[in-house]
């Protein structure tokens, strides 16, 4: 299983802080596609992604147990 985290405006769109999905072997790009089309969380498209707290590209392949976070445009400082 994989935990998927949402933050800020993306969290509000998702209606959840996190969900669990088995996406082992899928790419981040594919997961974005799924979240956007099946769950209507289309803000993932403008978000960066992190796996286990490190930024990754859409090509990154998800492994069992990875935590995936979607990072909408940041605005700290």
């Amino acid at each position, binding site marked *: 299983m994989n935990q998927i985290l949402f933050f800020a405006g993306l969290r509000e769109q998702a209606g959840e802080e996190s969900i669990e999905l088995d996406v082992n072997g899928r790419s981040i790009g594919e997961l974005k596609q799924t979240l956007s089309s099946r769950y209507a969380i289309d803000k993932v498209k403008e978000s960066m992604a992190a796996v286990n707290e490190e930024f990754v590209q859409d090509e990154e392949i998800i492994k069992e147990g990875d935590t995936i976070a979607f990072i909408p445009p*940041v605005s*700290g400082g």
Partner: protein
Amino acid sequence: MGKNYWISDKPLVIQEVVDLVTRRNAGAINTFIGTVREFTKGKRTLYLEYEAYKAMAEKKLEEIGHEIKEKWPEAETAIAHRVGRLEITDIAVVIAVSTPHRADSYEASRYAIERIKEIVPIWKKEHWEDGEHWIGDQKETKQGIPAKGDASK
């Protein structure tokens, strides 16, 4: 505290951040303090809410410290960022950088705030009289990993 980079839901104390970088071989300490401003482009903010992906945000703040160390080997850096509800004039972020000489302290401190706005997973929501909105300043809004050192200019 035990560490130089942290996210807190308590009010930030400037002196605590400065103390972490004060040392016998520094002659200069630059601090940047980000506060909640009431008016932005004529629009009145009532208060802000900050949210962070805490574990990753602390890691990324520390990573900024490492980037600074690469560019300015004699610099010591500490950064604290607050989350939760902040009122006008409350402190959202405190950066302190000490260096032997003053020019480096300014440059490294400036580098830190620019990088925070690029790579640290923290978000602010503005609350106005007529609504609220999550703000995204991020330079990199398409997919991709923020490049190291893009902020240096």
